[in-house]
């Protein structure tokens, strides 16, 4: 048999052109991002412990700059690889069908599977907004935790979050964001398991349900914060 011309096992760079390798990198980075969603959520939910909870969390985190920067570097790497390949794969896929069908009946695709690039784009754009909002803190400067301190002199993250989400517009942006994340993940979780070869005839239907559960959980857990703030439950 002819040896692999691009050399699956020899040239490190060229292996990334392989259609399966590309999808595996997307799957690994995607699952890494899903894992981050869960870690990030633990921090968010400390809001329910009141100002003491989330302000302490914020202060602890920022007293450990190496940890914060390691997380940021990891995330940037995951996002860059995932977004780059997401765009590349989508362009290649569109090029593979230059003439569309006049009549097309889909049997299996889902809204989520057909809109990965668009939900991805929404995630990316609102991610920038989110960083400007809570990291750079220039969306609501009057309640920026960098300047506003609580009674213990800690950055008042609690007030920053609660006063922001009282503004319906800001809450809506985050609702759209989490909707996009939920759709993206509802395909991404089972797709990545299949891509990594971790699915079979029996397990694939289970992974499809698992993906829906993960998506629903992430959506409900994250949006519960603006929802409870708007409802006046968290003040």
């Amino acid at each position, binding site marked *: *048999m*002819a*040896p*692999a*011309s*691009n*050399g*699956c*096992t020899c040239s490190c760079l060229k*292996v990334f*052109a*392989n*259609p*399966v*390798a*590309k*999808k*595996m990198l997307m799957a690994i980075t995607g699952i890494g991002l899903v894992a981050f969603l869960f870690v990030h959520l633990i921090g968010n939910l400390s809001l329910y412990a009141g100002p003491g909870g989330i302000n302490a969390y914020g202060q602890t985190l920022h007293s450990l700059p190496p940890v914060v920067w390691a997380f940021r570097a990891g995330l940037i790497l995951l996002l860059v690889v995932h977004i780059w390949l997401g765009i590349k*794969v989508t362009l*290649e*896929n569109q*090029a*593979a*069908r*230059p*003439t*569309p*069908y*006049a*009549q*097309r*009946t*889909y*049997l*299996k*695709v*889902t809204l989520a*599977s*057909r809109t*990965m690039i668009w939900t991805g784009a929404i995630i990316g754009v609102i991610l920038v907004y989110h960083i400007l909002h809570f990291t750079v803190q220039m969306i609501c400067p009057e309640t920026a935790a960098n300047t506003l301190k609580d009674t213990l002199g800690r950055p008042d993250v609690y007030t920053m979050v609660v006063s922001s989400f009282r503004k319906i517009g800001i809450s809506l942006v985050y609702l759209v964001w989490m909707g996009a994340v939920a759709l993206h993940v509802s*395909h991404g979780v*089972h*797709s990545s398991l*299949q*891509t*990594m*070869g*971790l*699915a*079979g*005839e029996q397990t*694939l239907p289970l992974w499809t349900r698992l993906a829906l559960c993960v998506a629903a959980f992430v959506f409900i857990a994250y949006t519960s914060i603006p929802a409870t703030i708007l409802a006046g439950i968290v003040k």
Partner: protein
Amino acid sequence: MNLNLYVWRQKGPNAPGKLEQLQAKNISPDMSFLEMLDEVNEDLVRNGKEPIAFDHDCREGICGTCSQVINGIPHGPQERTTVCQLHMRKFKDGDSIYIEPWRAKAFPLIKDLIVDRSALDRIIQAGGYTSCHTGGVPDGNAILIPKPDADTAMDAAECIGCGACVAACPNGSAMLFTSAKVSQLASLPQGRAEAAQRVCVMTEAMLNEGFGNCSNHYECQAACPKGIKVSFIAKLNREFLKAQIK
């Protein structure tokens, strides 16, 4: 029954094409879809017009030559059925039927409904075989193969290479086709020896032929007339991983 057809007509690879409206009259529900087209073609020839060019060969659902997207589904609406085995009783009198060729960059159109599918052959040529010495016929049970492995290989070997998976895939990907051959050979001791190399060269050939990537939409499995499962795609992915750590 009478039917209202919209058929893709295109004189040659670079000629402009369009959907042409044609009438199929006095069609028996017992005819196959191809026999219905034969009737329409007879009519066209009688009227001095160019008949519809379409691919067909065995007409018994085993060769994979027939290839038409009927009302937006490769091989039409009946599950696990090739166009030649699809019967007109699946349709109703007065129905409108859209008939289009397989659409993919890797399948250049030749004429009307006929496309060139040799890209699939080139994927097989890249590695869809075992490099064994020929000679005398080997002894039947000289190499013992566990029954489950033989079953997996046989299920994968059902692929008739028609290309419906590519036609159905929103990305024009040939993953289901390629995974069937990779899985078939990787399941058998004779094919195991070259499994790592095979999965690499065949997926590479897929890329070079201009097929898209797999997004796990699973349209391919739904369109496959032989019921090839996407679990073979997962198996191809496992084989690819194994090849990297070998």
